[in-house]
């Protein structure tokens, strides 16, 4: 397993390199220029020379290949460069937002899994009864209601019934957990609903499938308590496919909460992404794409390793 893991980690390098090449050159093919936007964006009358000088300062006048080389060398030294707009290191810009986004994603995952497992299980066990219908309606709702709209409903409810709105400034959890949670629990709920719906439906259908398996009949024929048949024999098998869904949804949450972050006024990765794209801030965009790509690859590896932990049939080295 260790060798397999090392192999997979090494394989991440070419994957990420591919992503780097793609994002770097695609950005430069698309029209638009950070200097133009920065200096002339407000309609300011700036001379061509100033623009050229600024471009030179940022290194944009060099050939693409040498720009790419500089970026790669920086990355090898774990230096993603400076934002072309704010001039602050990319790592710093991302770190501030990542803390928040990561926390929201983790909380949403926690909420989703804690709700989805019992919901999906009950729906499968009481298939075609009112319990199943309730779960099915709730989960269809989760899939069809956009998270930001659900978020807005949460905010309006808080305002209408409690005349209260969550704080808008981010407090790290280690500084003041209560202030932190009162701010982030709401967006986590808003996106957790959809997340939970996806996972619950997955668990319901895979549990229904597993309950038809021969080994479940064997367990019942042995006289195993029905509770144990479900928890020991069926649920373990049914949760395997859910691991994939949980992992993939989690990675999506890291960079994909653009509108929800807006609704809750959160300064997260999604917001930063939109901002940097509209400013054509090449270095920052590149850094963020690399971060999200790395997350994806890493979480996928984690899923595969978890499979090996839960399923004895999967052994990567033997």
């Amino acid at each position, binding site marked *: 397993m260790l060798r*397999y893991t090392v192999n997979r980690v090494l394989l991440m390098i070419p994957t990420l390199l591919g992503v780097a090449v793609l994002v770097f050159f695609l950005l430069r093919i698309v029209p638009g220029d950070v200097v133009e936007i920065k200096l002339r964006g407000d309609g300011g009358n700036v001379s061509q020379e100033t623009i050229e000088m600024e471009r030179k300062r940022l290194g944009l006048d060099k050939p693409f290949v040498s720009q790419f080389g500089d970026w790669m060398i920086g990355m090898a030294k774990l230096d993603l460069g400076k934002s072309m707009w704010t001039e602050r290191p990319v790592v710093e810009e991302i770190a501030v937002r990542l803390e928040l986004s990561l926390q929201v994603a983790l909380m949403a995952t926690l909420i989703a899994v804690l709700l989805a497992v019992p919901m999906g299980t009950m729906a499968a066990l009481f298939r075609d009864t009112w319990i199943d219908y309730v779960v099915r309606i709730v989960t269809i709702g989760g899939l069809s209601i956009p998270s930001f709209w659900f978020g807005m409903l949460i905010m309006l409810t808080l305002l209408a019934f409690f005349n209260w709105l969550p704080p808008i400034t981010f407090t790290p959890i280690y500084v003041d957990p209560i202030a932190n949670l009162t701010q982030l629990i709401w967006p986590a709920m808003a996106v957790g609903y959809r997340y939970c719906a996806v996972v619950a439906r997955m668990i319901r259908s895979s549990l229904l499938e597993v309950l038809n*398996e*021969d080994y479940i*009949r*064997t367990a019942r*024929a042995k*006289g*195993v308590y029905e509770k144990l048949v479900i928890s020991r024999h069926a649920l373990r*098998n049914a949760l395997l496919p859910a691991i994939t869904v949980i992992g993939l949804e989690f990675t999506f949450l890291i960079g994909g909460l653009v509108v929800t972050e807006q609704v809750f006024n959160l300064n997260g990765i999604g917001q930063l992404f939109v901002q940097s794209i509209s400013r054509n801030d090449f270095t920052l965009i590149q850094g963020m794409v690399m971060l999200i790509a790395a997350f994806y690859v890493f979480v996928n590896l984690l899923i595969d390793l978890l499979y090996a932990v839960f*399923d004895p049939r999967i052994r990567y080295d033997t």
Partner: protein
Amino acid sequence: MEALSETKSRQADATEPLLEVADLHVHFESSRGIVRAVEDVSFQVKPGEIVAIVGESGSGKSVTALAIMRLLPRLTGRTRGRVRFDGKSLLDLSDEQMREIRGRDISMIFQEPMTSLNPLLTIGLQITEPLTIHLGMSDAQATARAIELLQLVGITDAEGRLDQYPHQFSGGMRQRVMIAIGLACNPKLIIADEPTTALDVTIQAQILELMKDLSRKLNIALIIITHNLGVVARYADRVFVMYAARLVEQGPADAVFHRPRHPYSMGLLRSVPRLDRPRGNKLETIEGLVPNLANAPPGCRFAPRCPFRIDICAQEPPLARTDTGTLSRCHRHAEIADSKIAWASGGAGVLKLDVERKRPLLSVSALTKHFPVRTKIGNKRALVRAVEDVSFSIYPGETLGLVGESGCGKTTVGRLILRLEQPTSGEIAFEGTNLLTATPAEMKTIRRKIQVIFQDPYSSLNPRMTVSQIIGEPLHVYKLVADSKAATGRVTQLLDQVGLRPELAERYPHQLSGGQRQRVGIARALAMEPSFIVCDEAVSALDVSIQSQIINLLEDLQQRLGLAYLFIAHDLAVVRHISMRVVVMYFGRIMEVADRDAIYREPLHPYTKVLLDAAPVPDPTVEKARAPRLIQGELPSHLAPPPGCVFNTRCPMASQECREIVPPLVEKRPGHYAACIKV
């Protein structure tokens, strides 16, 4: 004889039955209406007795067992009747009381050892589970008992294997684990639902002998559910024959096998290919199909297929005691007893068996196929030697049987001949053309002449195409017909040739029965006007009565069209019936080749002997007289083939020499080849 069975049954009557099933009915609600899967079934099982429920698929035999265990799906299944077990009425117990009986007093062994064990739990946990639940054992006690149980079912290194998972066991070993689980709490009754159907014949013999010994030793009653009449003859004291949801005949095995008193049991016994009888005639068949249980005919269920049908058969016959002491659900059982009515002989007459062996149609020489497999990431590749140095010839109009157990390479040989796989080395010549060096144009003509019939009639036909499209497709591809009108005509003709009515042309595969589908598969092969057909387990998936119809059809076509067949199968009796020459394969190599009669009468190779020995024949007298001669062990791993003769690990005659020399295939008698240094 009669008096004997009379006293026997009287003796048996004296003991209280362990299980008493009376008027059992099971209905399923389905979208097509109510399916009456079991109707009016009554029988008794005494303590320590071995009984068999036989029947074809859909006869209700498995449903009966699941109904006794109350394991039928709750939402759709409805059970009515009385089931008394050990003084308790099972259908009236609460769920919790029933759970306490399952696994403790009655255990069940299922058909598919591959899927019946939980893949995520260790063998140890799965065996100890009933012990801790029913007997309240501590973990240490349960583990000790589990080790004892694994030793009892013949698993070596029991202690070390407790922590292993099901995928680390072979099919036969898993079935042993299932038996160990079944025995765990010393039950009074074990129900085994097709316990060996998924296993090879040598493993089947091991498992059934084990079950029989344990049942006798521990005084456990055993209900074996099977479609294999040989298994019934060998192991059962009493037999229950089921047909279309009803019990049609029951009684002592001797009586039912030797003097059946129901037309269905008579027909079934006549239509099985036999290892112990000379062949030369066509197989007897039961015409027609099993009725649809959602819309079953009134009266006797067998009447539509019964040659003795008279007016009274429109009324439901009672289960009546016959002269032999059996119970038969036939109005005319007395007439059968007086030999007033009997099945007419198939009328098909004698088969032509000898062919001229001048120029071979197909000859295979030194054919070898190795599959590379990756065992570890980054490691060097290992080889699976699927086929090793195989040579044989098939002459026009001949049937060559290719027998062997799973993993022996027989299917790969078929695929190599069809060029679905590329051989590693060797030669395949068809009518003098080497298939491996043939030009694409030559290959196109040859492909037409070599056709295939597959095992599974359910998955080898495209579900989105009608029968006429399936059969007509090759006609268009190879431009064998001028236009679509000619194609329709040809399809009708082909359907007629395989005994299907022309209306079936517009149906889809799912609207056909298994036998009909296999006929469509044959018609599709015939459409190309081939001279050679590879039949890969072509009848293995079919019920006995349908199987005999298809075998007869294949023989008929051979006689009329002069076809040659390579008949690949694991069923020795079927191969014996259809083949003229037989090739026995084991672990990728040919063990023995001979004319059919020679190989079945005087097998030379120890593997062939073992194989023939392991296959039970449907005759209780023969079977009970036969001492069990068992082959030990299992197929070795393909990744680590044994040195020398591949069979040496399981061979009763193996010596040091056999572990060193790979025996060549030598002509020991005229036309009789064997690869063994000991004969």
